């Protein structure tokens, strides 16, 4: 059962019922989900969670919807891998990778959308909507199909065909908007006011965002009910980062893990790094940026939760790190070639950020570190393809093969 009680304004603290709304009617501050933590403390145990389904919905008590009504396409309980080879490369003795590439539409967005669509159905909407260049669109279209709902997916008019297929296959109405990024933003905001749609990251946002907490819950459970010392999370709007921290705090409040004062670090691509830029100025004032990076899934120039992310970064003793696009590509290759995980560009940002922070001594070699890899690399092949070694071209003869191989490697391997 859900213990969700009300929505509260993060700015002025005003309380609202759990309706489809996302900003405070007085100050227009963002709304946040609150739960009956006293009742949760009496009810929720590790055993109760472990008896739940092998998906993110095993944590339904800490989500704003019931597991029985969940629109679930099998999201969550993705692998937490001990990354020994990558750790050795980076000088980190206890490094883990949370591999959220393994969700049904190959990104962590399935977590947030699963909660948003479940609430949308509860609120009796018949249409799901979003504006996205990739992962979110894929997930919204897939969940709408599963829920038997209509989907309106807004995309920039210049989006590559390959990016559209992963959404179009589920049968949504795809709307290509011929306008600047800012104009698409404003149009969607106006549409959400006019039409009775569940816009997952507008009027469903307080519910949608809660889905990200399940990443923290799973990590703690998979570590044998302990929290990490240090998390490294990719930063886009800042929502994922703030909700992972909220998840860690909730488990500690409820006595399900011991509070370890986890340090929260965040990584962005230099070409769109408004949160890290403010962090480096030691300011909480985010200056919006025009994105210019291959890490398009993180390219949010005006991050809604940037201020709250900076507060957590400061309070928890974490760090912000911004990496170049070349480092992103190297990060993708390093993760793939040490751990066998092909991540999209956001994963490259995380691995490159990890490398930088480890080298600077901002992550201790003995810390239990979790790096969050949030999407699969097949979605952004064009980013890394030019940096990969071409295949050897040979004739179907032993001589041709051996010539080509010795030319590439300088020597032939030992024979039997």
């Amino acid at each position, binding site marked *: 059962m859900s213990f969700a009680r009300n929505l509260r304004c993060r700015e002025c603290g005003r309380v609202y019922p759990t309706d489809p709304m996302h900003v405070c009617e007085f100050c227009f501050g963002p709304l946040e989900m609150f739960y009956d933590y006293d009742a949760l403390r009496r009810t929720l145990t590790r055993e109760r969670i472990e008896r739940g389904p092998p998906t993110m919905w095993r944590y339904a008590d800490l989500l704003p919807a019931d597991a029985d009504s969940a629109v679930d396409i099998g999201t969550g309980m993705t692998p937490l891998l001990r990354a020994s080879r990558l750790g050795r490369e980076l000088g980190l003795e206890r490094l883990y990778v949370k591999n959220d590439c393994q969700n049904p539409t190959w990104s962590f967005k399935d977590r947030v959308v699963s909660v948003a669509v479940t609430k949308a159905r509860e609120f009796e909407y018949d249409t799901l909507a979003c504006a996205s260049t990739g992962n979110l669109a894929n997930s919204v279209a897939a969940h709408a199909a599963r829920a038997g709902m209509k989907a309106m997916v807004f995309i920039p008019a210049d989006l590559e065909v390959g990016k559209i297929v992963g959404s179009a296959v589920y049968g949504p109405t795809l709307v290509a908007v011929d306008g600047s990024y800012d104009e698409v933003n404003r149009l969607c905001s*106006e549409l959400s006011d006019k039409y009775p749609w569940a816009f997952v990251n507008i009027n469903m946002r307080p519910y949608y965002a809660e889905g990200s907490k399940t990443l923290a819950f799973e990590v703690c459970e998979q570590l044998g009910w302990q929290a990490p010392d240090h998390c490294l999370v990719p930063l886009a709007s800042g929502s994922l980062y703030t909700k992972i921290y909220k998840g860690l705090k909730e488990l500690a409040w409820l006595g399900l893990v011991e509070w370890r004062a986890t340090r929260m670090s965040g990584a962005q691509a230099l070409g769109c790094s408004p949160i890290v830029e403010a962090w480096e100025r030691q300011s909480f004032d985010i200056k919006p940026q025009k994105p210019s990076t291959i890490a398009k899934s993180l390219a949010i120039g005006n*991050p809604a939760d940037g201020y709250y992310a900076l507060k957590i970064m400061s309070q928890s003793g974490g760090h912000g790190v911004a990496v170049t696009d070349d480092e992103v590509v190297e990060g993708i290759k390093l993760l793939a070639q040490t751990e066998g995980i092909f991540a999209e560009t956001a994963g490259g940002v995380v691995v490159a950020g990890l490398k930088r922070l480890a080298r600077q001594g901002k992550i201790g070699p003995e810390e239990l570190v979790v790096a969050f890899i949030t999407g699969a690399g097949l979605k952004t092949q064009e980013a890394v393809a030019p940096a990969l070694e071409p295949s050897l071209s040979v004739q179907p003869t032993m001589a041709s093969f051996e010539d080509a191989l010795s030319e590439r490697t300088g020597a032939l391997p030992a024979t039997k």
Partner: protein
Amino acid sequence: MAKQRMKFTFPTELIKEPVIWRLGRDFELVTNIRRADVTDDRGWVVLELDGEMDEIERGVRWVVDQGVRVDPVAGDIVEG
């Protein structure tokens, strides 16, 4: 009639300009400020615009042309 909630972000050179006053005077719009943070070198204002949708869009275009960044109060909506 329509209502739109927005965030205006002002660059340093526009901090002293009465942009919101002119928006209310030159367009058929009611402006209603709910939250703001303005210093001597930067500022943002969260406000509601009340008027016909066409007039809101015309007014917002004018504000953007002045050099003010205009965003939905929810921040960027287009996600990856």
